[in-house]
């Protein structure tokens, strides 16, 4: 069974009398350990797809199974628990909490998960080491460069050992050089076994991943797997 299974998923927004089909009958499997990019122009429905995959929202029709759990009928409390333990988010604008320092930012998901304070401290240092920021633990987010902030965000996403990581335009606010370093970090994580979904509108970034899904008008238009196609 795949890690994530989408079956005939639709998301319909009602704006006045008009129905907007942000996602239209999408069926998709993501296997454990895959490194995928979802690409599409703005308004294509890729954000909606990511919100559904990331359990921030529930579909209008269809079923979504994540790690064996049906989420289309889950309550908001169950969704929060799933987001906390099974999913890691990396955002375009980093979204670190400005009043907390680096270590505290990384710690937050574990607080919600109820991890003991000693274990939290150990795991924070471990995660910071993994992204190469172990000597920045006491800094405030504003004292760091954009690339460093994004690394903190990645450490935060990893901290509860999620089954899958969603990165929404993770390089959008970074210069080319720093962006490449972040992508390299993702590739390393992928090689270490993490399941990663990159959401982007930039084909160059999407080219980094073995598998690429393109969305247009709420439907999957292209689904390429380089390995299956014998390209890699």
């Amino acid at each position, binding site marked *: 069974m795949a890690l994530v299974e989408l079956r005939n998923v639709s998301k319909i927004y009602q704006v006045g009398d008009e129905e907007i089909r942000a996602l239209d009958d999408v069926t998709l499997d993501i296997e454990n350990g895959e490194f995928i990019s979802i690409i599409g122009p703005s308004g294509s429905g890729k954000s909606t797809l990511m*919100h559904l995959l*990331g359990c*921030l*929202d529930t579909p209008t029709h269809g079923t979504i199974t994540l790690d064996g759990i049906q989420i289309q009928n889950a309550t*908001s*409390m169950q969704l*929060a*628990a799933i*987001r*906390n*333990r099974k999913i890691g*988010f990396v*955002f375009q604008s980093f*979204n670190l*909490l400005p*009043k*907390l320092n680096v270590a505290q930012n990384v710690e*937050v*998901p574990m*607080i*919600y*998960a*109820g991890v003991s304070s000693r274990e939290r401290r150990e795991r924070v240092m471990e995660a910071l080491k993994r992204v190469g920021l172990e000597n920045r633990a006491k800094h405030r987010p504003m004292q760091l460069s954009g690339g460093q902030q994004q690394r903190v965000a990645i450490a*935060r996403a990893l901290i*509860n050992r999620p089954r899958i990581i969603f990165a929404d335009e993770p390089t959008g606010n970074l210069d080319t050089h720093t962006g490449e370093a972040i992508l390299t970090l993702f590739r390393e994580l992928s090689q270490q076994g993490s399941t990663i979904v990159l959401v982007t509108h930039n084909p160059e970034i999407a080219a980094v991943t073995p598998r690429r899904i393109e969305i247009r008008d709420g439907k999957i238009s292209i689904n390429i797997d380089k390995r299956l196609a014998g390209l890699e």
Partner: protein
Amino acid sequence: MNIWATIIVGLKEIWSHKFRSALTMLGIVLGVASLVGMSALVKGMENGMREAMQAVGGIEKVSVIQQDLPPSQSHLADQVVGITMDDVEALKKNATLTKLITPEMSMGRGAVVSHGKKVYRPWNICGTWPNALEMNVHTIEYGRMFNEIDDDLARNVCVIGTEVRDQLFGSFEETGKEIVPIGENININGQLFTIIGMFTRYESEKQKKEREYQMANPSPERMGPQRRTGWGRGGPGGWAFMMKNSTIYMPLNTMWMKFRAASGTGGIPDPTLSTLNIRITSVEEMDAALQQARNVMMQTHFAMEDFDFRTQENWDENISKQVNNYRWSGGIIAAISLIVGGIGIMNIMFASITERIREIGVRKAIGATTFAIFIQILIESIVVAFIGGVMGLIASYGLVELFKILIPTDNEPVIMMSSMVIAFSFGVFVGLLAGLLPAVKAAKLDPIEALRYE
């Protein structure tokens, strides 16, 4: 979600907006301080009101007084015994709910006291037992009280109040020095008495403060001929202290043998007591104690009901009623100011969550439940109220000091622990109520919308 972590997040949030938080807290600080200060003022007032009642013996003192027979028994009027020492002995033996009995034989308002050329009519001249000190809450400042030997020998000795001294020997205000007339002789209705003791000067706390204030800040002297400037020093209850200062006590036997001889029958001076004071063991047993004393006395009076009991219960109830009124009206006004403080907190919490919509979105995305966000906002507002409450308690001491400076002659306000507890818990409760709505609003935010919010 760990409560401590949430409290620390709340404290940090407060610390990062120090000025704004301080202004928010100010509402709670003032509310709590005014609630405590108000109740301290009322307590001071109550103490002032109770002072006069304590001065005449307190609520446990009951006077047994003589009265005419009821109409049904009026044909027995010539056999009436009156209140006598027989009653005292009988009560002593049989009235177990009575812990102190003091007979009094008084001379009435017509009695004249003189020393040299000075003449004075004291309020109360009576013969009594040495335990009258305890019964009527007297304190001897100079000399001594007469004792059982003085009583047995019916000596011509007396103990006087300061007003008697003031009138016969000169007061501190006139002479500029405290005259202690111990050992001096005075004339009481034509008989020579030696003063062996003098009471302290009784006055209400308010009178005392006024006197001290006037000594420290003398008012400009009035021009024109000397005159009395009117009654009413010391406010309500001042009369109780006036009467108490204008007292002369002598041994009961002295009074009986030296002043009652003329009105006796068969060579025995008239043994009728003018009053019999008893002190009951506790106010709760007032009804039982009176019933018991009545039963005993009905025995000694051969079922003739020529006596009656007089208590201070009405007075006491009036004080309680009045104090309760002040407490409620003041309390409601102070509580309104606390609620206004709470509205201030609510306002700031709404501003604070609007500022942090994005943060709330992020927290939800990384796993905060609706409940966790709700608790976080609620705790922040409780923490504000808690700190404000603590500061309010501290401020209430300052407020009471301020009262003392502004009204130095009034009764001293007394801060009560119970009012502090009530004000503090009410303040925190208001903080909790104020946090509810903002917390619900924050908790209900949609994570996707919140993450997009700029």
